[in-house]
């Protein structure tokens, strides 16, 4: 493995004088940076000049955009799944719950049976409601993080396009 071949850095030389920490060489830092699960790469830009340049590196940008898009797609498709599960619950909604409420109560056995049935239906309904509530909460969380991702992505692209106009003037 090549050690310290590329040379666009100031970081290691400067930082070794200051820090008592173990300092990682540049190509290892790139290895790490490429693996960070980022919600917002703009934070990385604030670390130091070298990191700022990494974040604007086309390779980094490409992989970040790629991952962002697939995250957004994942979030969207799970949201869709939840929506679909709502639709499938519809069939179970006990529309007939109140139907024969005022039937004659002549036969005690029948009444008991009826009540047990109703109770079971209500029980079932409750389970469905709980489940729907859970789905709703997950959807809410997903949508919030979706919104965040989109916002981050938007600002990142804005800043990236602003700071790298040369890339696009040639296109």
């Amino acid at each position, binding site marked *: *493995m090549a*050690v310290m071949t590329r040379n666009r850095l*100031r*970081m290691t030389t*400067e*930082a070794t004088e*200051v*820090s*008592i*920490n*173990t*300092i*990682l*060489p540049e190509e*290892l*830092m790139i*290895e*790490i*940076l490429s*693996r*960070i*699960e*980022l*919600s*917002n790469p*703009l*934070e*990385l*830009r*604030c*670390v*130091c*000049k070298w*990191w*700022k340049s990494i974040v604007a590196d086309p390779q980094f940008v490409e992989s970040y955009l790629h991952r962002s898009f697939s995250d957004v797609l994942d979030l969207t498709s799970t949201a869709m799944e939840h929506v679909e599960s709502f639709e499938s619950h519809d069939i179970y909604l006990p529309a007939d719950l109140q139907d024969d409420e005022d039937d004659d109560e002549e036969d005690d056995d029948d009444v008991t049976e009826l009540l047990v049935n109703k109770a079971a239906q209500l029980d079932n309904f409750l389970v469905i409601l709980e489940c729907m509530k859970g789905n709703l909460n997950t959807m809410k969380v997903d949508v919030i993080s979706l919104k*965040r991702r989109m*916002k*981050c992505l938007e*600002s*990142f692209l804005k*800043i990236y396009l602003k700071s790298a106009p040369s890339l696009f003037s040639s296109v």
Partner: protein
Amino acid sequence: MAEEVSSQMNSLSISETNPSSSATISLVSGDDIVFKVEPTIAKEMETVQSFIDETDGKITTIPLPNISSHDLPYVIEYCEKSIAGKITKEFEAEFVKKLNNEEVKELFLAANYLNIKKLLDFLSQVIADRIANKSVEYVRRYFGIENDFTPEEEAKLREELAWTFTGVDPDDEDEN
């Protein structure tokens, strides 16, 4: 499957009648501690193996000046698990739990020096996970990076960041 491999390892370590292929390898740490390992372990460490190959297996004592006796046992442990086919998520989670941030970085460098691809991949992911969603200050401290921006430059970057501010995890000070 894993059973088979480990029994093979045993037979390798017992058959010392064939010294050229199965003599133990001595790894000498930077602080002069000798660690005897099976040749199969050395194979996992590309740097060590290529040294052995270059000398046709005549030299079995390999100095590793860049690796301390504190770190080497971890590397060996990982390689042992690796050849036994026992690298699981659980093992890896336990493995890093024992390590503080400084140790992870040292091991990462050791893995790079020894050229152990699996350990290198694994540890870079560990470090990436440890700094994901941490504050800028935390990341600087973690890597010992000096802030080389002027206050004006930094203020401008922070301002751009503020548009998207999504909150960071609290810094876990006890880690460092």
